[in-house]
């Protein structure tokens, strides 16, 4: 087109085109909703739109002016279309903002609670104990609740006339069958079946002829531990139990071992731990001593080992037993043992 100046008609058309474009851009940018935008689009770009009509009128131009005009029209169309889609974005965004604002809710209204039950607190404590001991290489074994007097007493070096066998303490089914009074019968049971090395814990339900009150129950639970191997020492019992207590109740809890007596261990120990309630300062729970009794323990008596076919000259072992119910009560601050067996759902929900 160089050198040629546009015809007068072309100049006029250019002016018109500019005016259409101006108007279009103005109207589009003023549109605030999708309807207005559509109206704009139809008005300018529709089949009968101003730009479409303008394009058709280009036939009136001299052929040499057409390429330039065509280009200008296309540019105008592109700009309008561009602005249309830009404005569409603006409108959509504004609409979304509006909707989000409208969708505001009161987040202080209570959540929709999905129902979930809970494990019994005794199970929770036991799970924790199992977890700790499994980490130390202990397996879990279980035994019968209705037990031979042999395993409950004789195999544990508790002689025929021992007061522990009294009917005041032990529930008898027959002269030879009892409700086990501790989880210890599973010590000889395990040692008869398994050759050392043995590392087990034995949780279970036990029975003693106690009337029901806040601290006594004829049905309760124990967790027994047994280790038999070459070279097991009293020091190992101390180390293992201390590790366990610190894991269950926290690093700040100390253990104290004092001599005691059980027929199936020798040396025997009573294990105390720092009172969880007062942290050792002394309180009602620990009777102002700062300590609470946690476990009876000791080195497995050589007669017990021997009876199970384990050579006490080669092997030694340790055992400990503790009350699961008592541990649970201490862990959660439960002050009445009856709550554990009453199963009020308002109690069970708290764990």
């Amino acid at each position, binding site marked *: 087109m160089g050198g040629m100046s546009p015809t007068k008609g072309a100049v006029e058309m250019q002016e018109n085109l500019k005016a259409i474009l101006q108007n279009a851009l103005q109207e589009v940018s003023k549109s605030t909703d999708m309807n207005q935008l559509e109206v704009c689009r139809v008005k300018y770009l529709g089949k009968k739109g101003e730009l479409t009509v303008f394009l058709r009128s280009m036939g009136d131009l001299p052929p040499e002016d057409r390429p330039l005009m065509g280009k200008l029209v296309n540019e105008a169309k592109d700009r309008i279309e561009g602005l249309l889609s830009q404005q569409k974005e603006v409108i959509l965004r504004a609409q979304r903002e509006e909707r989000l604002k409208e969708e505001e809710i009161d987040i202080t209204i209570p959540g929709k609670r999905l129902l979930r*039950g809970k494990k019994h607190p005794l199970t929770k404590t036991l799970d924790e104990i199992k977890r700790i001991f499994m980490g130390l290489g202990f397996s879990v074994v279980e035994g019968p609740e209705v037990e031979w007097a042999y395993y409950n007493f004789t195999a544990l070096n508790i002689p025929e006339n021992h007061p522990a066998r009294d009917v005041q303490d032990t529930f008898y*089914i027959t002269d030879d*069958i009892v409700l086990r009074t501790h989880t210890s019968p599973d010590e000889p049971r395990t040692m008869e079946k398994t050759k050392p090395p043995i590392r087990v814990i034995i949780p279970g339900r036990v029975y003693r002829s106690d009337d029901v009150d806040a601290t006594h129950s004829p*049905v309760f639970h124990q967790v027994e531990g047994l280790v038999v191997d070459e070279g097991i020492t009293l020091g190992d019992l101390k180390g293992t139990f201390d590790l366990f207590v610190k894991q269950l109740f926290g690093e700040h809890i100390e253990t104290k071992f004092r001599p005691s007596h059980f027929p199936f261990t*020798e040396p025997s120990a009573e294990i105390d731990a720092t009172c969880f309630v007062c942290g050792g300062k002394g309180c009602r729970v620990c009777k102002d001593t700062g300590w609470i009794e946690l476990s009876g323990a000791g080195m497995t008596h050589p007669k017990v080992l021997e009876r199970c076919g384990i050579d006490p000259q080669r092997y*030694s072992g340790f055992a400990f037993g503790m009350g699961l119910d008592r541990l649970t009560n201490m862990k959660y601050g439960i002050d009445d043992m009856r709550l554990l067996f009453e199963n009020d759902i308002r109690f069970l929900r708290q764990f």
Partner: protein
Amino acid sequence: MLVPVNWLKDYVDIDMDVKTLADTLTMSGTKVELILDASQEISNVVVGKVIEMKPHPNADRLLIAMVDVGDRVLQIITGAQNVKAGHYVPIALDGAVLPGGMEIKTSKMRGEESQGMMCSALELAMDLNSLSEDKKEGIYILDGEHAPGTDITKVLNLEEKVIEFEITTNRPDCLSIIGIAREAGAVLKVPYRKPVIEIRKTKGNINDYVKGITIEEPELCYRYVARVIDNIKIEPSPQWMQKRLIQAGMRPINNIVDITNYVMLETGQPLHAFDLDKVGGREIIVRRAKDREEMVTLDGKKRILGAEDLVIADEQVPVGIAGAMGGEFSEITRGTRTVLLESASFNGYNVRMTCKRLGLWSEASFRFVRGVYPGLAETAANRAVMLMEQLGAGEVVEGVIDIYPEPVKTKHVEVSSDRINRLIGIDITAEEMKDMLERLEMAVKADNGMLSITVPAFRQDIEVDYDIAEEIARLYGYNNVPKTIMEGSWVQGKKTLKEKLEDQIKDVLCGLGLYEIQTYSFESPGVFDKLRLPEEHHLRRTVEIKNPLGEEYSIMRTTLLSSMLNVLSINYNRGIKGAGLYEIAPRFIPREIPLKQLPDEKLTISLGIYGDEDFYSLKGRVEVLLDELKIRDYSFRRAQHPSYHPGRTAEVVIGEEVAGIIGEAHPDVAKAYQIDTRVYMGEIDFSLLMEASQSEIKYSPLPKYPAITRDIAVLVDKETEVGRIAEAIEETGGELVEKLELFDVYTGKQIPDGKKSVAYSITLRSKERTLVDEDANRIVKDILDSLMDLFGAKLR
């Protein structure tokens, strides 16, 4: 056992406060339960040194004393004439409290200030009987020199602490003051003393007083020592003895009885004093009682005895029950002139059985039950007659009758120091061990690391090397043993399949909104009636407890339902709107009655729900549980059970086996448990679930081709079970039926009487190709045809 500390100090030098003593003994195995304070209340009374005595300017009979009480010099007015400069005396300071509560204040006496008070023995509530004459009157002049200002209770030993010990059953030798003194001596490494026994004068000969002593039952009476005291003068025992008896928990009676008790507390050997004149034939026979033989004991009660009881008899009748209680007839009274003192050892088990049957417990029987070492008998008898002589209670007759058929032998233990070190986890020398054991009165030879130990006979608990290890460990101090981590073979901690499954079941059931419960394993036989079980029902065959706490706890449960219903009832009756619970516990099924072998402990899951629930919400939970356990081949079958609603009960069938039963509780059962709403419950056998459960999970590929879903609604007879319709659809559709969902069961408007509308959504999919509408139409038509054939179902 109550041990007055001042009594203990007679036999062992304790130079520490009582708390430290108690802690030390506890940590060596002699456990202290409590420290009791039996002291008279005395405060702010200190030692004063008299510097100067001068006359009172305004009163002839008063003196002014200048007394150094440590931090200052006080002026004290006194009327006492026995105080001189240089004396050490007890001074009650301003604000002091004396026994009986009297309070001392600074005051003016005849114009001169008195800043305290000098005290007499009486004012300090001292035991006058134990004081020399010159100490009884006037101000108490202290012997020796003391630092002014020292608390007088320390200087005069006025502190009266009593330690309560809990002695373990293996140490009956510690059930005495001397036993504790010996233990304290060994632990504190200080010497302990035994009482010196010295009888100054004797008269006559015992054989002229006693005709004879016979033990007919050497299995039940190991030793019988007798002594005789003549010319008895019955009176109260001295104050000091009474005080000690009271502190040790016994009631003073008279000098003779008190001495027997005193010596028992001191030595651990129970003694009994008979009025010899009342012992028929002056003869003692230790024999079994005759069948229904009677005697009246000291407490005035008539006792009927039998051959299982051991008695101390005269030539005809029992005069005492061995180890338990003496007879009233031969009791020591004001009129008693001659005493036969018995110091004997009886079989503890026999004493226990007799005392238990007669409900007789005493300090004496307690010691016999734990085991009295027969070697004590003679020493204790001599100690008692010595005290009787000393206190002027009578004249000791020459001679002892001592029947001791089989003297207890000392034991020997051989063990290497190395073995002991290895059991405890310490490293000390044989010499150190020898030293510890010798403190416990053991004779030890240490040779090249081998310890050869002679155990004193009173230590009946020591038999083997482990027992020696315990002695070493406790004297070394359990707390000094280093905490170690086990060496040796590594063992892996594992859960059994049963435990894994139990964990999983609990997780699933908790996830389904159920709470775990724990209930007693024994119950009342009455529950079977509440559960409507007929007379001959197999669950009524139970494991029975011979000595139950009561009928309500007398059988081991054969069903978990009653416990479950009890818990539901507790919650329901506390106004809780709904609860969902489960328990996993064994049922105890006897293999035969009476039991000859252990019963079958069948682990069982019980379920119980009430509230916004129905049969289907229970069933749904069971379905989810079975699905989660990857149990495939299960179904529900209509069932009858007396405890359940006749029309709302199903058996859970896995494969061919009935694994459990679920349903609505029979209204009479709910009512029997005071539940006034519908209750849904069930029991499922754990081991059958374990057998059927698949622990392995195999992934199946996701479908490649699209599915077509068609809904159909058909009219069938009201009685038709939808389960049967579902079975028919699945059978006809074959493996193309991927999913079948019942979405509506409707009766009412637009449905003819006796009919119901059942609507299913059927998802069809092929593994080989994309199904087209024609396929779906054909299958649905086949299905409808078969439903028509089987149930007369019409498409709605």
